[in-house]
């Protein structure tokens, strides 16, 4: 078809939002356009000469597009771009900044599981997995992606309100010699020194040590 005259305002704030390398392109609708705007999306591997259309995000009316599969190689960097259409007119292509999955992703807190005896609690931490396209695919822990990954663990004695702080490299921690019959609340955070990436702290997992026999 002939080249459309693109006078539609542009999509705004086109950016990747990434958590555990699930890389989703987001944008805001062009200013002043109501319903009915449709979009199409393309992406490019930085340094490679061509833009690639994303068929599943062609003529969509939502303002996001999951490009996790297309950007799963975190040794590459990417650009993505969005164009809006309405009533026969269109906008310009609006691009993201350069996206580096390794440094531009956010990391979820670790999973925390806690068990207790009368005088100790045992904590097992599990780092989140890298996004994968299907359950059948092999799981890759973020521990493999970020070898320098550490855990910061906070243990709160609910009776004394005292909080202790542990910094560990492996994923298990046993805290012995605790007060029997006391509730302890545990939360943990992932810390990667370089690139500098910190998860938030997990929810608190509280458990009571058993009453003294």
């Amino acid at each position: 078809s002939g080249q459309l005259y693109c006078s539609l305002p542009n999509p705004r704030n086109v950016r990747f939002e990434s958590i555990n390398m699930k890389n989703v392109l987001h944008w805001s609708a062009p200013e002043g356009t109501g319903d009915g705007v449709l979009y199409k999306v393309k992406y490019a591997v930085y340094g490679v000469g061509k833009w690639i259309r994303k068929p599943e995000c062609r003529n969509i009316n939502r303002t996001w597009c999951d490009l996790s599969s297309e950007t799963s190689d975190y040794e590459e960097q990417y650009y993505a771009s969005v164009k809006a259409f309405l009533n026969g007119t269109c906008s310009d292509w609006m691009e993201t900044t350069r996206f580096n999955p390794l440094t531009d992703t956010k990391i979820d807190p670790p999973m925390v599981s806690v068990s207790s005896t009368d005088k100790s609690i045992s904590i097992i931490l599990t780092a989140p997995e890298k996004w994968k396209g299907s359950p059948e695919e092999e799981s890759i822990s973020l521990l493999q992606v970020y070898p320098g990954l550490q855990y910061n663990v906070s243990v709160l004695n609910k009776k004394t309100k005292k909080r202790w702080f542990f910094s560990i490299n492996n994923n298990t921690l046993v805290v012995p010699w605790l007060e029997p019959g006391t509730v302890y609340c545990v939360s943990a955070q992932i810390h990667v020194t370089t690139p500098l990436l910190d998860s938030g702290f997990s929810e608190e997992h509280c458990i009571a040590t058993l009453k003294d026999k």
Partner: protein
Amino acid sequence: TAGVKIFHFGACRVPVSMTEIRAGFTAIKANIQSRDPIRTLSILSHPHSLHKVKSSDRCCITHHLFTFYVDKVFKHCRTEDSFVNRKISSIANSFLSARRKLGQCREQNNCVCGEESTERFKQILANYEGLNVTSAAMKSLGELDILLDWME
């Protein structure tokens, strides 16, 4: 914190303040990369990825690349923005410090240059010389995280 990473090349130890360098780059990444409009070319990562370099060649390529940045790149990246200039100075001086230690590794014969690393670096220089010097320097600076990701 100033996370220093110790790189081991044979018996040679090279401490590099990676966290400081990364912090400096992160602070100016968007600014520098926005000055590089060319999406279809890369200096460091195409056609050959650094990630395919044999481990025996890592020291030599690293030394080549630190020299490349110190000799050719940083000096052509001065901008009108003094914040950006300060961060570039910080990175450049950190690179200079690390390159000196890498040079000591070469003197101790812990940094042998094989054929592959020489070929690989020639390709990088060819990519660089394929652009005018300011564009090439700005693109190279914008790709610093490619080098840092590979080093780590």
